[in-house]
């Protein structure tokens, strides 16, 4: 995985003139416009991400939530141009990061961004760390590669980073291999790698799904604390609505490759306006509710991306669907302060 660039990929970092363009002083760090990514599969061409647009402010934590196949991970991978081609392809759109369109960069230029200005943390630390390299080398690698530090200095930096992610006994742990770490400690190593070059944006794709709840809480609060200290923005990809509520400033809800609702976290939870979001909120059992009533599931089955209905993809499961929904796909429209939804019906939570 590109989280740790192999020796054969050690290309020079982006030329300095790429960085000069960061000059624009707006607080919008990332603007995604009309991103569409598709995959060729045995069932035909599947549009995993379909016309997705969103903004991210510097220092903000944005959660992208959705169920399996909703396109949340593909959105993240598209930002870093990590879509395997073939079978995947970014069809259209713009990803403006610090003023430059990442989709227009050469392969060499995007490698200068990855792990440097934008870092990624994957779900499975065991498979995204290189099993035959020590933790120290892997954390030092981006420092050596992007900041051109000599290895000795990069390893000193790696030790500091392991301290920052609170790996005890960091000096001796530099020489340890990934299998010698527990799951939680491995994810700390991943976070150390991600922080190595002080990125402006960290993308964490289900970073704690493989971990136990007490360790999940440790890792997420560490991630939140460190991104806050570094003033990095964080895109947190998750299916866990509890995690979103605890850590996110803003939320994008995805369904079948599209954003169906977005807004400030509190607004999305207290005043959800898309039938899918409303359904999700009603279907989860909560620790703070007292009754043992029946849950209110969203009826029907998850969408099959290779065979989506015309119009709105949620229509077959939607209790507010009208004839219009079958012929026309609703677009994301503003319904309040930074609150957007893609639905024709005017629905409010019960």
């Amino acid at each position, binding site marked *: 995985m590109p989280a740790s660039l192999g020796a054969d990929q050690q290309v020079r970092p982006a030329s300095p003139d790429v960085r000069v363009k960061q000059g624009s002083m707006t607080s919008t760090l990332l603007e995604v416009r009309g991103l569409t990514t598709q995959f060729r599969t045995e069932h035909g061409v599947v549009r995993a991400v379909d016309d997705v647009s969103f903004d991210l402010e510097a220092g903000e934590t944005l959660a992208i939530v959705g169920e399996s196949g909703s396109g949340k991970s593909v959105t993240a991978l598209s930002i870093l141009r990590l879509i395997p081609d073939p079978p995947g392809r970014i069809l259209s759109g713009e990803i403006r990061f610090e003023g430059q369109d990442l989709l227009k960069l050469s392969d060499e230029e995007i490698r200068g961004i990855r792990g440097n200005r934008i870092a990624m943390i994957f779900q499975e630390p065991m498979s995204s760390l290189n099993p035959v390299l020590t933790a120290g080398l892997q954390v030092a690698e981006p420092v050596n590669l992007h900041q051109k530090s000599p290895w000795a200095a990069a390893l000193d930096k790696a030790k500091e980073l392991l301290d920052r992610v609170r790996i005890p006994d960091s000096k001796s742990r530099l020489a340890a291999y990934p299998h010698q770490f527990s799951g939680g400690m491995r994810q700390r190593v991943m976070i150390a790698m991600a922080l190595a070059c002080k990125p402006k944006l960290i993308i964490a794709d289900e970073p704690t799904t493989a971990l136990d709840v*007490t360790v999940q809480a440790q890792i997420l609060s560490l991630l939140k604390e460190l991104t806050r200290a570094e003033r990095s923005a964080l895109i947190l990809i998750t299916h866990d609505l509890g995690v979103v509520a605890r850590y996110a400033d803003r939320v994008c809800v995805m369904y079948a490759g599209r954003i169906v609702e977005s807004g400030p976290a509190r607004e999305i939870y207290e005043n959800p306006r898309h039938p899918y979001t409303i359904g999700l909120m009603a*279907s989860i059992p909560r620790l703070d509710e007292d009754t043992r009533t029946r849950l209110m599931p969203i009826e029907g089955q998850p969408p099959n991306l290779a065979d989506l209905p015309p119009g709105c993809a949620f229509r077959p499961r939607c209790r507010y669907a009208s004839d219009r929904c079958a012929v026309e796909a609703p677009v994301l429209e503003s319904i309040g302060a930074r609150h957007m939804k893609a639905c024709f019906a005017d629905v409010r939570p019960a």
Partner: protein
Amino acid sequence: MSAQPDAAAGPLLEVEDLKVHFPLMAGIIVKKQVASVRAVDGVSFSLKRGETLGLVGESGCGKSTTGLAILRMVTPTAGRIVFEGNDITRLDRAEMRPIRRRMQMVYQDPYGSLNPRMTVADIVAEPLEVHGIGDRAERRERVRDLLAMVGLRPEMAERYPHEFSGGQRQRIGIARAVAVHPTLLICDEPVSALDVSIQAQVVNLFQELQEKFGLTYVFIAHDLAVVRHISDRIAVMYLGKIVEIATRDEVYRNPLHPYTQALLAAVPIPSPALEAARPEAIIKGEVPSALNPPSGCRFHPRCPYAMPVCAQVEPPLVTFGDGRAVACHLHTADTAQAAE
């Protein structure tokens, strides 16, 4: 094999001091046991008919092994399992077969637990065949009823598992489990692999079936919100032991064991307003290896209230009123009496 006449009054299932130790072998030619993994190390509880016991804990706590041992799918090292009044701990395969008709299992992975080469009809009919229930035509009829009961259309019977979504596959697994009219279902993480919107459908199905047939559940899960929703009583496990067992409301409203408290505090509530007001109480460390568990109380290296005694003496499970039991030096027999 019918239950003994007086069994209906007593508990459906009694587990006493259950231990399951897996030997750890070493050696290239001559294998020798060098240690043992104490996956389950002295677990006791009892279960009434129609009740749901939630079994929660983090990975490696022994919750799944406990479930498998009740079904005798792993051999208990020590202890007793009494089901419907019969001690089944030492029964052999042939003797277990009629018992297995009364206790069935629902698995976590709806992809791995259904044979991809069998049609849904064959999958659901298989336990009927194994236990010699009905002839071909009757079984076919029964399969149609079962599929309808779990919310699948009868014409789906001739399809293969890959044609179904995860939620539908879990419904097939449930139909197979209830086909032989069991009294006890062991559900091992039955909704963990499902999408959020589908989890609720399957949780509701479990509750409907329980009401309809008076089923008794052991519901094993790591998702505390789901467990709280479905369970009457909850046992919290840590490294092979039950650290606290109580009614659902007591566990969630007034958790006594520091591990139960930590576990509950770690689960985020899906409400930004409540989360903002909640103090962050994160415990340190990770679950140690069951190969070499800590001395004394197994939770003491991570416990915010650990005292010197905790590293030396293992706290016994002390019963308080109403069947609540806690294994912690902060809650001894004296404090139990004082509380009453």
